[in-house]
C-alpha cells in the first residue's frame, strides 16, 4: 500500500474511490473528466482492436494457430448468440456484439489486478488517485448504455419508418384511444433499458472493487493471522469474480442484442 494515507481503513478505501481528474476543476463540479477511466478504456479498446486485427489479417483456412483458434471460438460464440436472437442482416450487430463483449470483458478484467498495483505505479509518477476499473465508474457504463439506447432508437426508425415508430409509440399496448398512457409506458420502457443496463454493470463492478478494497485493508493491520486471511479471501473472491466479470460482459452483450432486435420487431 504505497499510496496509503493516514487514517485507517475508511480513509484508505475513500482514497481509492477517488478519480483522477484535471486539477483545475473544483471538487464536485458537474462538468469534469475522469481521466483514469477514459485512458484505461481507450487503451483496452485499442489493444482489443489491434489484437483481433492482427490475428484476422494472418488468419489461414488451414491449421489455425492457438491465437487464431481462440479468436475463432470467441467469434463463433458471439455470432451464435446473435444468430439465436436476431434473424436478419448481422453485418452490423455481429461486430457490435463482439466489441461490446470483448471490451466490457477487458474493462471488467482490470478488477482482477491487485487493487494497489496501478495506483502504486502511477504514484511513482506523482499521480495520487487512479481507479483502474472503467466499468466501476458510473459514467462509463452510462456512456455505453446510452449509446445502446441511441442505436435502439435509430434502428426503430430504420426498421419501421418514422410513421411506423410513432404509431407504435402511441398505440402499442392499449390502442389509439389511450395514447397518453401508451406513450408514457413506452417512454418508461425506453428509459428503463439503459438505466438497468448501466446500473447492473456498475453495481456489480463497484461492489466487487469495494470487496477487494475491504480485503486489501486486512493487509495493513499488522497481524499475521489477518494477513493470511486476507490472502485467502483475496484469492477466493478473485476466483469468484472471474465468473462475475464474464457473466456481466455476457449479459451486457446479450441485452444489447435483445434490445436492438426488439427494435426491429413490428407490433
Amino acid at each position, binding site marked *: 500500500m504505497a499510496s496509503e494515507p493516514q487514517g485507517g*481503513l*475508511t480513509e484508505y*478505501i*475513500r482514497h481509492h*474511490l477517488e478519480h483522477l481528474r484535471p486539477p483545475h476543476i473544483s471538487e464536485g463540479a458537474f462538468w469534469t473528466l475522469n481521466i483514469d477511466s477514459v485512458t484505461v478504456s481507450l487503451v483496452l479498446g485499442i489493444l482489443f482492436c489491434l489484437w483481433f486485427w492482427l490475428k484476422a489479417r494472418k488468419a489461414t483456412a488451414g491449421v489455425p494457430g492457438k491465437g487464431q483458434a481462440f479468436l475463432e471460438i470467441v467469434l463463433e460464440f458471439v455470432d451464435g*448468440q446473435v444468430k439465436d436472437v436476431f434473424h436478419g442482416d448481422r453485418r452490423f450487430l455481429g461486430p457490435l456484439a463482439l466489441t461490446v463483449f470483448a471490451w466490457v470483458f477487458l474493462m471488467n478484467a482490470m478488477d482482477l489486478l491487485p487493487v494497489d498495483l496501478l495506483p502504486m505505479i502511477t504514484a511513482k509518477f506523482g499521480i495520487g488517485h487512479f481507479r483502474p476499473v472503467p466499468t466501476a465508474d458510473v459514467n462509463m457504463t452510462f456512456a455505453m448504455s446510452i449509446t445502446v439506447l441511441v442505436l435502439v432508437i435509430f434502428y426503430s426508425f430504420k426498421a419501421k419508418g418514422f410513421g411506423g415508430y410513432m404509431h407504435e409509440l402511441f398505440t402499442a399496448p392499449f390502442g389509439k384511444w389511450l395514447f397518453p398512457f401508451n406513450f408514457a409506458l413506452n417512454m418508461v420502457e425506453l428509459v428503463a433499458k439503459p438505466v438497468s443496463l448501466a*446500473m*447492473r454493470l*456498475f*453495481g*456489480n463492478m*463497484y*461492489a*466487487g472493487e*469495494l*470487496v477487494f478494497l*475491504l480485503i486489501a485493508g486486512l493487509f495493513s493491520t499488522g497481524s499475521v493471522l489477518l494477513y493470511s486471511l486476507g490472502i485467502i479471501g483475496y484469492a477466493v473472491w478473485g476466483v469468484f469474480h472471474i465468473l*462475475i466479470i464474464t*457473466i*456481466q460482459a*455476457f*449479459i451486457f452483450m*446479450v441485452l444489447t442484442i435483445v434490445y436492438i432486435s426488439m427494435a426491429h420487431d413490428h407490433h
Partner: protein
Amino acid sequence: MELVAHIAQVQGFTAIALGLIIGFGALGACIGIGIMGSKFLEAAARQPELVPLLQGRMFLLAGLIDAAFLIGVALAMYFAVANPLLVNVMAAGAGH
C-alpha cells in the same frame, strides 16, 4: 457530547439499514438462484440434449438475478465506508 450521540445514532441506524439491504437482498437472490438451479437440473435430467442450450440462458439469468443484489451490496458498501447521511450532522455540529 451531544454531537457524538447524534453521530452514533445515525451510524447505528445506517448499520441496521446495511444489514437489511444485504440480508434481504441475499435472501431474495438465493431463493431465485435456488429455484432457477433446481429447475435447470430438472430440465437437464429430463432432456439432457438441451443442456448446452439451457446452460447459456441459465448463466444469463444467474447474472440478472445476482445483479439487483450486487447493486444493493454496492450501495451498502458505499454507506459503510463514506456515510453521506452524516454530512448534515457534521455540518450542524461544526456550526455550534
